[in-house]
């Protein structure tokens, strides 16, 4: 397979910041009256009892589901996603559209609270909480993981956002 090149390849290392690679990111969009059917299909695929509530994520053997929109779920997995009929919704591969910047747990809240108007303290933005929010004027998706916060940033903005975070991290002390 032709090797993938990261938009962050030229960035200098910065403590607490790294890139998390994912093989596949699929977007599932349901029509107004078909969300339940789509969510059930995806939950079954991932092996979880049910799809996540809004602004939540769940992870099963078949991958992770993120509820990023009232009618949308994102499936992050290593393999292919389930097919859904056109009467249920639409599937779109956006694996290359997002670059995941991982911010380590020890700096995630102090660093990101300098840019994001969401209460990111762990007891408020807990593991598997998801939020869509502007970061440096760019719409990103945040996902709290066990070891920090993942920023799913649009690929073209990823380096600019990462540079800003790295410069701010250096001043955090």
């Amino acid at each position, binding site marked *: 397979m032709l090797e993938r090149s990261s938009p962050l390849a030229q960035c200098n290392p910065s403590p607490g910041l790294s890139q998390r690679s994912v093989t596949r990111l699929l977007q599932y969009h349901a029509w107004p009256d078909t969300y339940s059917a789509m969510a059930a299909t995806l939950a079954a695929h991932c092996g979880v009892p049910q799809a996540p509530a809004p602004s939540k994520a769940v992870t099963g053997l078949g991958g992770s589901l993120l509820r990023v929109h009232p009618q949308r779920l994102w499936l992050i997995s290593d393999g292919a996603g389930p097919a859904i009929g056109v009467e249920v919704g639409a599937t*779109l591969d956006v694996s290359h559209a997002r670059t995941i910047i991982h911010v380590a747990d020890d700096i995630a809240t102090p660093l990101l609270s300098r*840019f994001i108007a969401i209460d990111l303290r762990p007891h408020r933005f807990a593991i598997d909480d998801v939020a869509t929010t502007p970061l440096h004027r760019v719409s990103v998706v945040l996902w709290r993981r066990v070891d920090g916060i993942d920023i799913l940033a649009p690929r073209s903005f990823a380096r600019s956002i990462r540079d800003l975070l790295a*410069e701010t991290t250096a*001043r955090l002390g």
Partner: protein
Amino acid sequence: MSGFRLKAGGLVDRGKALRFSFDGKSLQGLAGDTLASALLASGERLVARSFKYHRPRGVMSAGLEEASALVTIGSGARATPNTLATTEELVDGLEAHSQHRWPSLQFDLGAVNQLFARLFSAGFYYKTFMGPGKSPRSWLFYEHFIRRAAGLGTASRAPDPDHYESCEAFCDVLIVGSGPAGLEAARVAADAGLDVILAERDFRLGGALPHETHPIEGEPPRAWIEQREKLLSAAPNVRVLRRTSAVGLYDHGVAGLAERLAPHAGARERFWIVRAKRIVIAAGAMERPLIFGGNDRPGVMLAGAMRAYANRWAVAAGSSVVIATNNDSAYVAACDLAGAGVSTMLLDCRDEVSGELANDCKTAGVELRLSRMPLHAFGRFGVRAVEIGTADGGGIETIRCDTLGMSGGWSPTQHLLSQRGVKPVWNDTLAAFLPGEAREPIRCAGAAAGIWRAEDCARSGRAAGAEAARALGSSAPAEEFPAPGGWETPIRAWSFGAIKGKAFIDLQNDVTLSDVRQACTEGYDAPELLKRYTTLGMATDQGRTAAVNALAVIADGRGKPLGEIGTTTFRPPFAPVSIGALAGVERDHHLLPTRRSPMHDALVGQGARMLETGLWLRPWFYPLGSETVDDAYLREMRLVREAVGICDVSTLGKIAVQGPDAGELLDRVYVNAFKSLGVGKARYGVMLRDDGIVMDDGTSWRIGEHEYFMTTTTANAGKVMAWLEDLLETRWPELRVAVTSVTDQWAGASVAGLQARALLQSLLTGVDLTNEALPFMGVREGRFEDVPCRIARISFSGELAYEVYVPADQGAALWRALLDGATARGGGSYGLEALGALRVEKGHVGGPELDGRATLEDLGLGRMASTRKPFIGSALRMRPDLQRKDRPQIVGLVPAMRGETFKGGSILCEAGEESGHGLGWVTSVTESPSLGHWVGLGLLRGGLQAWEGRELIASDPIRGRSTRVRIVAPHFLDPEGARLHA
């Protein structure tokens, strides 16, 4: 005599000396000092010059209410003007400069203004330079000189080298101020489990308690503070922010806090945006000056400030002090000063006070004079005597002193509450505005609520903390809010009758008692009018100390109770905030985010000169050796016309339109039909705004029965995406369509030129690119190496051309392969400049023509509009004005003399009529290496039909050039499309 450091006491570290300078003079202070306390301790009495009259000024207060001691801190790019010496924490090496004086503070030529003081009375500008009988030109003439003379301090013009940042925070309760009320509110709220932020402007907690000597709740004040500080520091649910001013309160519990960070903290200031469920304002109260002649002289200070300097900073403001008051609070100040060994006399304008206060004075050695008030202070650079008398001017005598204290009562600090639109309520008994009823969960506590005794302040803080806890569902011990007040003898209103000389009400703006009286006489006797007529209450001070005194003068003049006069509304910020703090990290190269294409690193590595276009960095041109942009783009155009060129088009907007109704959506937004487009085909489309004006253009590819791949211009990508989402959410929610921006999913390259097909065929598999298999506007899928790709036969340049897209992470690999192949075929890469020039040669409209004013017909695209279906803009585009034949319409332009050039933006007009807006304008120009002369596009009244073959002048008045141009069809190259279909 000037101020001096007392031998004992204070909260300063006598073992840690700090060096600083004032106007170049090297001085020494102690850790724990403010600049003001260190200046006073060093005997520096003259620290500033006043705004209008350049009168000598000294330190008047010990806090944020300071109106005189404004200095510039630092120098060069780090200079910060208008810093209050009273709030500036002393650090080693601090550099302070006086301002608004020339050539020196001691000898300021601006002081000559005092000779013309009678001219500079209220409404001076309005009367002198504006209004009936004044030429409109007079203000324009004088304005320059007035502006040069006005203003306090000078900001550096150099870029600020320091870092600033902003920070978002959330809490259950935000407490503003850490006096006894604030500390207790925080403690009780924290005990109840609330998430608490405590913001304190000072670098030390305690509010006014560190100035206090009397026990509070049975404990020495410092021990009382330390105990609570310890508790709060240990509580995980409390964040204590020192050096942090709450400067603004906004809707829904949002507060703006400005924090000054310690040196080496990584940033100089931090602006906090706090979202609090409840807010407790425990910001204390500010002492008011008294109004008498010479009340602005260096050495005239607020009584509470004199006490603060003595008790907290161990600084005596002078050695022979007279304190004047109309209330009880100055008694403890006088007693403390006397206790520190300072000769002290207390003048009380009241005829009697409680026996306890009189006894306190006697015990402390304070000479108490009842029924006396200061009428006029003498001295130039410092007080040397004061003339005192009764309120009616009797009993006059002159008393020698070097410092004059004053206490005209206290004003609760409720500016933040005022920002929320809460009107304060005047209380005659306390002579103070008390907080009005807030409809938001905001509570004033302590002195901010008009409570004067420290123990009552602590009680009110506990009540406020408990109230917050209960409101948020926690339990807390019940505590009653104490009533405002706390003095034994009622305050007495100040009398203005016997005052002599120039008496100032607003020291920062040099507004005097006579100015206010004059303004009232002239009809400007409402607070808002008075403010604008006299400037009272403007600038950094915002009338903190002047407002109530001014209202008292207005009330006196109008013969009405003060409570009926009204107030002005305080607006954010309460205290000055650095612009740097408001900008935060979003400055310089981080002012806006930067977008990079998937090919970015490859392009830069190849030597591309990049250009910022919107947020994107795009390759402008690819210089060889010392080529200029003109050399390079012409060469790159030749590569395309003669061999093959490749261009990064990843920045084009790309939108996936999916669903059973995808075709229906496109039919509604494009002027032409898309539902009928076959799978595997692309079509050029134009979309209009609701008003019938062209919004954007691009191609949409049908890549499946229920899926289209829409492309937009780079500039309008976000706008079109938002437009589609808006339509689906608000107008057509019934459509089963998903629109998703996939601009970042795909990397794209345009491959144009005679050898484009051969080049692509050598790199791609699984796709037949022959004319028969992939005709013009055909779309196919193939593979680049083992990666799926999309290919469309589309041309922007007029050549045989393709756009090829691969997943973004493989974009760089595609680019390198294309570049190698193109170079081997005598071609190469071309940038934005050549891209634009190629499309002008071909006569395609682009950004300069799609300027938000043009219709389809204006651009020569009218025939594209379907008559079989409605679409957005289809009704309003038929408005008579948009159908006029004499509207500016697209034309081609060539110079009449083929060797001449002309510029974009030139006005098109007939010879001899080169003025005004002309007949049209030139939108785009380029040199055409294929044709050997310049060509251009323009929008011309009546268009080609009216002007084809005729000559006009392309007038460029800004550059002083005119060129004769001939009007031709806008298709300069291959109008039949033979190259396109090759």
